[in-house]
């Protein structure tokens, strides 16, 4: 243990032992010793400079431009497909009589699910005092908001007559009609709009101190004004910080139930119906686990290139990525359990329709979708048991993409296979997507990445103020030579 005092040094990266694939390895979990979450930085100023450089650089990196051009092109595709749908009618999708929901609701559930990781990181991990969340929470929350925006498109356009989409809301109207309050589709409207509002407030409230930092560093009048307006006159006084911390805690408490409730309500869209394959009580927890699973995969998908592109490897470290991969592994196992339990109950319930629905899922006309789902969501994430894979940047990136694909297929399998073969064999049919279905799906990814790239370029991508608070320098006893150092040595060796 003689090397400990040196290891405990500062956030300067000396605490980390060795490297993995050229990255500082701070993934260790030795008792009595906390691996640094911020590498290679001695002062708060360095954190500020590293994060602000992304928005203050004259030009973003070339890779940003390439990604942005592609994404905006896909937004154009989305716009075209949506307008074509609106002007022509929902018949341009491949929907048919038994399969009345397919790509639209698949995409909706997929995107809503993606958002859940952001809320889990920002709210639940905050309440559990998980310090590593500070490196990733800001852009995970941004991801939540953009994902919910993408999700919101699909229910809005799948109604057919888009111009009366406000009928979703219970507003007194000339028809003297109300939405069906007993329908989970209406609960969905409330759940998703609440989720979006709270997530946006949480994201913005957390960003105020960092926006003030950008305002104070701004060199042009326009930047001063723009960041100044959104910083809401933040001066960093004690009173400001006190109120900010209270507000943040309250918003975290408000968001925490949403992590569980929103996707539960989404699952009710299916679970409260009578359709075999949908009508199951496991759906709410199964959907929530799946949402967090897919959401964390998306955070990894975004974090890996973002830290590379903008030079944030010292703030989003291997430890952050390793932790997220562990969450993916755990939630992946939960999802696998749910898949297994669905089959077990289908057999154990003795309901022949239920049994048929599941055998048909695995071996019917959509067998390929089912097995893509199982291999992507259950089998592949098991690789994350190996630390070498959890800490390999290229491998985790590929695996996160695989999980994204798998979770998209999970929703597709649940929705389409159950609808295509219901109680009445004479009405069975097969869903085949049209180019508009596929274009809208790809276009939504374009919208998501466009918003994310704009966020990276213009807003503080990492919560600077919060990251600083988890650095050793934030400890009041930090740097107390002699007694303080000795005391922490003591602690270290006793632990």
């Amino acid at each position: 243990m003689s090397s400990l005092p040196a290891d405990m040094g500062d956030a300067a990266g000396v605490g980390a032992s060795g490297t993995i694939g050229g990255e500082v390895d701070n993934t260790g979990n030795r008792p009595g010793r906390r691996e640094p979450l911020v590498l290679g930085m001695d002062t708060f100023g360095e954190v500020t400079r590293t994060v602000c450089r992304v928005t203050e650089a004259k030009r973003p990196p070339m890779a940003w431009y390439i990604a942005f051009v592609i994404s905006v092109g896909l937004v154009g595709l989305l716009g075209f497909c949506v307008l074509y749908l609106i002007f022509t009618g929902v018949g341009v999708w491949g929907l048919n009589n038994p399969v009345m929901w397919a790509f639209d609701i698949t995409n909706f559930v997929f995107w809503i699910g993606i958002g859940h990781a952001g809320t889990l990181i920002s709210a639940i991990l905050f309440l559990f005092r998980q310090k590593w969340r500070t490196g990733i929470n800001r852009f995970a929350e941004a991801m939540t908001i953009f994902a919910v925006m993408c999700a919101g498109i699909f229910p809005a356009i799948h109604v057919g007559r888009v111009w009366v989409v406000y009928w979703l809301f219970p507003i007194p109207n000339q028809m003297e009609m109300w939405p069906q309050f007993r329908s989970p589709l209406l609960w969905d409207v409330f759940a998703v709009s609440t989720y979006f509002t709270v997530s946006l407030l949480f994201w913005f409230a957390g960003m105020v101190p960092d926006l003030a930092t950008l305002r104070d560093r701004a060199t042009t009048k326009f930047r001063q004004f723009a960041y100044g307006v959104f910083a809401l006159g933040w001066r960093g006084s004690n009173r400001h910080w006190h109120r900010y911390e209270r507000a943040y805690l309250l918003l975290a408490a408000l968001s925490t139930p949403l992590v569980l409730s929103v996707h539960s309500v989404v699952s009710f869209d299916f679970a409260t119906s009578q359709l075999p394959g949908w009508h199951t009580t496991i759906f709410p927890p199964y959907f929530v686990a799946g949402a967090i699973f897919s959401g964390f995969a998306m955070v990894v998908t975004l974090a890996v290139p973002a830290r590379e592109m903008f030079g944030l490897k010292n703030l989003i470290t291997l430890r952050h990525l390793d932790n997220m991969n562990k969450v993916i592994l755990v939630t992946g196992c939960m999802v696998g359990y749910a898949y297994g339990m669905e089959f077990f109950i289908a057999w154990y319930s003795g309901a022949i329709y239920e049994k048929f629905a599941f055998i048909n899922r695995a071996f019917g006309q959509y067998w390929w979708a089912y097995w893509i789902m199982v291999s992507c969501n259950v089998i592949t994430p098991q690789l994350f048991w190996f630390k070498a894979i959890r800490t390999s940047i290229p491998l985790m990136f590929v695996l996160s993409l695989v999980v994204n694909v798998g979770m998209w297929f999970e929703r597709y399998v649940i929705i389409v296979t159950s609808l295509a073969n219901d109680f009445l064999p004479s009405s069975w049919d097969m869903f085949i997507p049209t180019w508009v279905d596929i274009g809208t799906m790809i276009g939504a990814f374009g919208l998501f990445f466009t918003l994310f790239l704009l966020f990276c370029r213009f807003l503080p991508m990492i919560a600077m103020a919060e990251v600083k608070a988890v650095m050793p320098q934030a400890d009041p006893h930090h740097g107390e030579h002699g007694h303080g150092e000795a005391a922490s040595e003591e602690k270290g060796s006793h632990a």
Partner: protein
Amino acid sequence: MSRFLFPKWSNLLLPGLIAAGAVMPLYAVFFVAYGFSPKTLDAGYQPVQPVPFSHALHAGQLGMDCRYCHNTVEDASHAAVPPTQTCMNCHTQIRPESPKLVEVQESYRTGKPIEWIRIHKLGDYSYFNHAAHVNRGVGCVSCHGRIDQMEVVYQSQPLSMGWCLDCHRNPEPHLRPVSEVTNMAYQPEFELTDTEREGLLAKYDIHPSENCSTCHR
């Protein structure tokens, strides 16, 4: 380095912003509820017709029955707009030289119909049957207003779904004997007692349905 500060006067905006934030959602609801309603958007629609035909003169002063021109209402779902030939039944004799009838004469000669502008429009997705209503004692005036007093016809009722339902949910006050259907001045509330109106309900076997598929077939 100078940094952006909110100027002092911006404090004055704060109460306004809070008030706007509180009131805007209410205003939006109000706006949709009343602004999007056919009561606001459609009632009172009064286009200029190609011929200055006066219902006030024909149906009012002259006392012509609605069914002389709109002759299909008792048998068909659609209330026919008469062909030019119907006008000429009389106007070959009465004021054939009137300048107001130039278009009508032209149409009669060429056989090209007059392009009347339709006022009472229902959505393509709503089914309405004139015969079903007219033969059960729902007066023309209930939906079309005092046509006999209109120089130029306008839409007097909203024709919204809620407005249809008002009557389907409670038809008695709007019923009259079938013989009085085209009588614009007939006011059932003065002419009939409650018992008589209930009698009409039974007599005409009226069970107004409120199912979606009654109108949206």
